[in-house]
């Protein structure tokens, strides 16, 4: 029985709902995000190499491509991760998520 779950990935005013499983790699998640962006011509197509995923808003919580969901105990169904894009060269966006009003 496949244990399917979904995670929500946030960046600025965007939220990506990605279905995944414990065995999925972070790299595969980035591929899904890239796929999602390409569904609309109004969004820039960003390749996985230009993405960074974070476990929390703490900049030291960057997730390695080769690791899997299972490697990070805190990632569960409906968990929230954070995404930034490369600004070119070695520069990366800072984690910035538009807060949903409570």
């Amino acid at each position, binding site marked *: 029985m496949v244990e399917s779950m979904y995670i929500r990935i946030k960046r600025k005013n965007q939220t*990506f*709902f990605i*279905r995944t499983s414990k065995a999925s790699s972070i790299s595969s998640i980035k591929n899904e995000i890239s796929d*999602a962006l390409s*569904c*609309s011509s109004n*969004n820039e197509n960003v390749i996985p190499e230009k993405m960074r995923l974070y476990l929390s808003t703490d900049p030291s919580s960057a997730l390695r491509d080769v690791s899997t969901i299972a490697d990070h105990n805190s990632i569960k169904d409906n968990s929230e991760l954070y995404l930034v894009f490369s600004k070119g060269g070695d520069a990366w966006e800072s984690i910035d998520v538009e807060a949903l009003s*409570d």
Partner: protein
Amino acid sequence: MDSQSDKFVKLISAEGMEFFMEKSVAIAGSDTMKAMLEGGFSESENNVVRFPEIQGPILEKVIQYLYYKERYRKTTGQIPEFVIEPEIALELLVASNYLNC
């Protein structure tokens, strides 16, 4: 080179927040979404649907529900409760009525 994904759709809330979800989950969970995405309505320009009357937090909750519905579609017996915060219940009711889900 211009390959547009058909797996995902983009939903845009009243304030312009963008939510990306799997098209199949949207279509399976809401007749209104199905009609919008398959029927060539003006609300949907290839894979994008706008909801000018639904706020971001409400739309996010709706999408969470659609995934929940899909996840437990075939489960018989007990399933976990889908928790709804009282503060959003009223707006959520309006949205779910519109979306028929």
